[in-house]
């Protein structure tokens, strides 16, 4: 007999060691995420996957499922908290969608739509984060960084280059590159790296092909992040 837990009242089967998020998605239930990626160990920083398991708030991506647990996810309370986390991500950076090449293909924006975030609510921090256009093929626009560390992990663990790292602390934490000059051009970064195409938002962008897809035909113009994620899970 397979083990199962209840997600919003519905039984979800799981195997030992599977996290709540993995088991839920496999069973066709959507739990949102930004920093989680199927090819990497759980990271647990964005907190979008927050659920209530047995009455306690946990990250679904990092918490192994347990037999008999009652897990709340798609509830007004949890979705309200997710909206709050999205608002935090929007105000701490400079997310100006109308001029962003990633608009329409951006997971942060798509989650804003999914959780009906109509306002950033808080005061904007308007941080100073200059762009790095030094590299011949790629542009770095730090204004949009959400600190998911996917580029850090991809470059370190897959590309074997450690081009990216986080430095600073707290609200002053920021992305840095592996060069004394601080310039991407002075690293061995390549447009063919996994790190070059893993950014869920618009920080790491290829040069020379912005706004290639017209509005109306971009990824999240045609489907929601919920349906896209679940479709990818099936295939």
């Amino acid at each position: 007999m397979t083990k199962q837990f209840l997600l919003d009242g519905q039984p979800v089967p799981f195997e030992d060691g599977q996290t709540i998020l993995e088991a839920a998605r496999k069973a066709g239930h959507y739990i949102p995420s930004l920093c989680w990626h199927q090819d990497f160990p759980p990271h647990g920083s964005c907190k979008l996957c927050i659920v209530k398991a047995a009455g306690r708030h946990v990250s679904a991506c990092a918490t192994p499922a347990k037999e008999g647990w009652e897990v709340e996810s798609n509830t007004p309370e949890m979705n309200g908290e997710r909206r709050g986390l999205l608002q935090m991500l929007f105000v701490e950076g400079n997310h100006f969608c109308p001029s962003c090449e990633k608009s329409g293909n951006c997971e942060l924006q798509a989650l804003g739509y999914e959780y009906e975030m109509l306002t950033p609510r808080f005061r904007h921090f308007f941080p100073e984060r200059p762009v790095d256009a030094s590299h011949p093929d790629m542009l770095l626009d730090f204004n949009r960084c959400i600190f998911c560390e996917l580029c850090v992990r991809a470059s370190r663990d897959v590309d074997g280059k450690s081009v990216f790292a986080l430095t600073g602390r707290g609200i002053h934490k920021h992305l840095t590159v592996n060069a004394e000059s601080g310039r991407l051009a002075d690293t061995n970064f390549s447009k063919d790296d996994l790190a070059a195409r893993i950014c869920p938002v618009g920080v790491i962008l290829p040069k020379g092909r912005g706004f290639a897809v017209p509005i109306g035909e971009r990824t999240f113009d045609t489907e929601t992040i919920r349906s896209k994620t679940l479709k990818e899970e099936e295939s």
Partner: protein
Amino acid sequence: MSALPATPTAALDGVLQRHGHYPTELLQILIEAQDLEGWLPAPTLTHIAQSLHIPRSRVEGVAGFYSFLYTQPVGRYRVLFSDNITDRMLGNAELMDALCRKLWIEPGKLSEDGLVSIATTSCTGLCDQGPGMLVNGRAIGQLTHRRINEIAEMIRQQRPLELWPAEYFQIGDNIRRKDSLLNLDMKPGAALAAVIELGREGWLQEVQKSNLRGRGGAGFATAVKWASARNASGEPKIIVCNADEGEPGTFKDRVLLNSYADLIFEGMTLAAWAVGASEGFLYLRGEYRYLLPQLEAVLARRREAGLLGRNILHEPCFDFDIRIHLGAGAYVCGEETALIESLEGKRGTPRIRPPFPVTKGYLGRPTVVNNVETLAKTCLIALGGGEAFAASGTAQSAGTKLLSISGDCAAPGIYEYPFGVPIARILEDCGASDTQAVQVGGAAGVCLAGYEFQRRIAYEDVPTAGAFMIFDGSRDLFDVARAFVHFFAHESCGFCTPCRVGTSLLQGFMDKLADGHGAKADLADIDWLDRLLKNASHCGLGSAAPNPVIDTLQKFRPAYERRLVSLDFEPAFDLDAALAEARQLTARDDPGAHLHTHEEEEK
């Protein structure tokens, strides 16, 4: 790429050599590399990365994490004023202002000649003898205007720190009440001899009988932790003493480290015996670096006496030694998994749990992390037996607790009480009067109002790592909460969204109220942020960050309400001030060049 001058490179290579070029030593290497020039220039980071064969980005990541590592130049005299609420109550702001004026510099900035920089830092653990400061890492307490004048003069004369008056650097223990632990006069090795007699299993049973629980505040059963590590697979096993005493208002570990170091190291060795561990670390907070030489001396003496090293007390297969690992200004490293990351030479970011350190800790090995006081207490159990230990205190809280008492009282200092002591009794003993509130357990703890002073210090009532800050009727509890909110925003590691952004947002709301822009709507937003921080944070720092606000909003709400200028809405900034730059650029000062910040004044 700029080349390093010859001498620093040679000295730097010496540092790298001394640490065996191990990447796990990165934080220690950075601390010592910084000693060479006072800060860490970019080429130094590059050189360290090349020598350790690790990416430069990792070195920069670590260097940027710790408050006491500087990737920008700082003064040859680096003055850091301790900024706990107790320092503030003793007038640290005025003293810092005075020193800045005397030396003609602005806080946070470097003087043009590179001589001096002055800034604040989180609680330095001198609350019983504040206001405190660190000068180039050396602690000075009991600051007065007179001392500040003298310090300004000595800095101006560029007098080396070694030639400053010795009494400046004397940090007293201020022990006011002793009980079983502080009265223990143990010959080094006596507890060890006793437990070797018992055998590893017998010793673990004794600890179990004692009902000893962690003194770091969480109160996890020590015997359970030790047994888990013992039963976990992986070698060698590790014992870590958490001396990263960063909780504002706590200084009991400072006193234990200063005067009871043998009990601590012996306790670590007792833990090693139970667990079967062979490596030990004492993680010493950067603020207590001045204790390092004397602690190293104690370790050396213990090695010579056969109390550390191979075959301890001639017991075959009992090998254990201890290294001291320095922190560098990061409160979050008091969290055990962040501490382990830091031990590994990384940024102090708390890990995902499970796995817990007892199964996968330092370098993936079974690791016990215990508080300083917990480890010292095990000596009592070794000498007197578990049952005797369990006989004092309360049903769920065996033994005694060291309290670090500061704030508004006649006799601040260290008090050891059996668990179960009522708050009111403590207040009486330390000579507190007209007490309005007590913050127990530090910034992350609980704020108790007068009607709660019959409550007791115990895991089942008011648990605490030991901080006990007293506020009399003259204090404003809003200011207290705001100081703690600033502390958490400064100390957030920035890993998870709710804590990284939420602590800054919360700080923004507290500042909005403090600056005279408060509105009723802000209190609802503060409530909402408190809840999200508590629910969604990755570690205890984030979930504890709203505690001071939650408590004071409930128990001292008028302290917030009297700051409101609107019952509806109020901008967070001064609208007229937002026009100041434009006024200056246009040389205008007509009525149209101004805005009333409060709308009702407009008509």
